[in-house]
């Protein structure tokens, strides 16, 4: 006779072990995914926070009337004034090569900064004055401790000579670190210390506005038709399947559509937020339709029936009674769709929004770029300081996404309470 209890008992030990193993596999999977998320976010934060600091360097410049004519400020040669200021600071630098290195301590933007400074406050004219200039990206990285001096000289950006100059300037109190507001005030630039995200941000906002204005009304209208008025027919089945499939089409395909139809056929301005917004709205439309349908479906039919019973026409019942209840849900869907559109890059590359844009676009017809495209462009730049800028721009992009999703969550909570 088999001792069932005994064999079952032996087995049970093994089975319980398997149970624990199985459960920990699930936990480990979650931990792996979440630690990857943490790795990503920490890397980006560590890398990007450096861009929040702007290093400046104070240089005495000779602004006497022989250098700058007070009546004709624009004609002065600001670059050479700045250079002679630097030479005077370090008189023992004689060789051409070294002088060049010396000039490179200041950002190439320095001469424009000098001009702006004088135009802002002409009283500095007439004598030698100390003025703060943006430091070059290499100096900036060094001051913020991002350059390892223990690396052999020929393998780092700064030579020993430059390091001694910088140390001297630092002990004289001629170097300071300021919050980098320029990052939010400037457009793109070839110089990482000057480059900012304003132009890209405005481009993104313009594109998203076009996208929202087009896709939200259209999406809501389509959802309302399909959910409330469409007769059960083959056609509405086809539309339904079609919308579900459109939602899963790779975004780059929408970019190809935009390239060949909006740019090729309708000849709309290339690189413009108008075309960007159009392409994004095609992409967002299915998302908004699906979310709006779900929201309309969750409105209790009693609300519509009550309106119909009181004599409202079906259109009145839907627009006056179903709509207000479903609206928060539809807006939530729209925000989620917009958030996805904000982060999407590939379709914008197709329609030429990859241009180098310094000026902030003033209308939806001007060439522009968008925040994720700016990230892509900076990520491609070889200068090390641009890697910081890339991370900083990513932080800004993620903050916008968090804000949008937060708005969606809050709206959903409010909406759930009401029903």
């Amino acid at each position: 006779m088999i001792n069932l209890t005994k064999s079952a008992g032996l087995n049970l030990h093994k089975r319980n072990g398997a149970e624990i193993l199985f459960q920990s596999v699930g936990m480990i999977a979650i931990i792996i995914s979440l630690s990857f998320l943490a790795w990503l976010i920490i890397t980006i934060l560590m890398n990007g926070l450096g861009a929040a600091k702007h290093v400046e360097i104070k240089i005495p410049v000779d602004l006497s009337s022989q250098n700058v004519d007070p009546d004709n400020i624009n004609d002065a040669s600001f670059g050479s004034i700045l250079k002679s200021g630097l030479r005077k600071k370090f008189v023992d630098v004689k060789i051409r090569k070294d002088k060049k290195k010396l000039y490179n301590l200041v950002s190439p933007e320095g001469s424009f900064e000098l001009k702006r400074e004088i135009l802002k406050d002409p009283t500095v004219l007439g004598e030698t004055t100390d003025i703060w200039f943006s430091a070059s990206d290499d100096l900036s990285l060094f001051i913020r401790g991002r350059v390892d001096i223990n690396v052999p000289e020929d393998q780092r950006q700064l030579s020993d000579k430059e390091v001694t100059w910088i140390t001297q300037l630092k002990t004289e109190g001629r170097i300071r670190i300021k919050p980098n507001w320029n990052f939010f005030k400037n457009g793109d630039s070839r110089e990482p210390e000057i480059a900012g995200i304003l132009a890209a941000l405005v481009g993104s906002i313009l594109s998203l506005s076009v996208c929202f204005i087009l896709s939200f009304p259209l999406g809501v209208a389509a959802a309302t038709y399909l959910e409330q008025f469409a007769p059960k027919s083959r056609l509405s089945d086809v539309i339904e399947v079609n919308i579900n499939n459109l939602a899963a089409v790779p975004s780059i395909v929408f970019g190809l559509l935009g390239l060949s139809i909006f740019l090729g056929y309708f000849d709309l301005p290339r690189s413009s937020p108008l075309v960007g917004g159009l392409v994004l709205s095609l992409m967002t439309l299915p998302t908004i339709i699906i979310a709006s349908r779900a929201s309309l479906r969750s409105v209790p039919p009693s609300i519509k029936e009550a309106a119909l019973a009181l004599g409202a026409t079906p259109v009145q019942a839907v627009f006056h009674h179903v709509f207000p209840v479903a609206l928060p849900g539809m807006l939530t869907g729209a925000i989620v769709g917009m958030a996805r559109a904000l982060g999407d890059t590939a379709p914008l590359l197709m329609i030429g929004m990859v241009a180098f844009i310094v000026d902030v676009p003033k209308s939806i017809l001007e060439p522009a770029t968008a925040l994720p495209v700016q990230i892509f462009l900076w990520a491609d730049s070889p200068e090390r300081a641009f890697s910081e800028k890339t991370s900083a721009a990513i932080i800004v992009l993620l903050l916008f996404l968090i804000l949008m999703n937060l708005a969606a969550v809050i709206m959903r909570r409010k909406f759930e309470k009401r029903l």
Partner: protein
Amino acid sequence: MSNSKINLLKPVRPEWIDRLIIGGLGISAGIAILITIGIVLSLLFETISFFEKVSIIDFLFGLNWSPQTAIRSDQIAAEGSFGAIPLINGTLLISAIAMLVATPLGLASAVYLAEYASKRVRNWIKPTLEILAGIPTVVYGFFAALTVAPFIRMAGGNFGLEIASESALAAGIVMGIMIVPLISSLSDDVINAVPQSLRDASFGLGATKSETILRIIIPAALPGIAGSLLLATSRAIGETMIVVMAAGLAANLTVNPLEAVTTITAQIVALLTGDQEFDSAKTLSAFALGLLLFIITLILNIIAQWIVRKYREEYD
């Protein structure tokens, strides 16, 4: 004074207004179809003019991809060569790596969240996991190129492995992590849809929780899980920014994940950004690739949706 009586039967609003509104709504719904037609037509026309320059056989079965305009005379063909096989191979290789990473992670997470986690843990973990799906792909691309690829290269170097700096492995792993929440939340839904009675019956016969999950719940949810895996695959195949930034443009015909490969999407971006001559075979080939991509992902999506819908009906 019979005129002053209100006729209750006559609607206050003329009926045509309502018809007009409903008609307008119907047209909006039709726009969705218009977009699809627009995609198909725009891709098709450009593809047809591409096939006037390059034969469809060479495109679909050619083993060489070098679309550059000829500079040297000894190049493979004067106008470049347009064999899509290396791109299809690269796309499938990277997607396969992504799915190898995402499937176990996604399924194990889904099972844990659906069957083991307490409600509180679940309410925290699920949205946190979904952040992974909400991060823009350009961010993943930057992270893959800046951090993951050098890390893998270094780790491989410790084992004496030569890993390309733009290896398929780095792009695939990062893409896999991105897809985890897609698989986990879809699978979580189908696992939750398995009727409680099946679990109770299994427990009643003395099965442990893991036995119930492996032998009852997963088989019952299998069609839905398969659907979610297909959708995830289609997402991986169509993913652009990660491969553009981390996988590079070398059209190698290899299945070695340590080497660099390129994908359909990365090539479309490479072909259409920068200077382009219109109507050249080079520019037009991007549309042929786009059509290929559209067809592959459409087929996967249709199968996936068909499976999911069919499965849903079974338990409703």
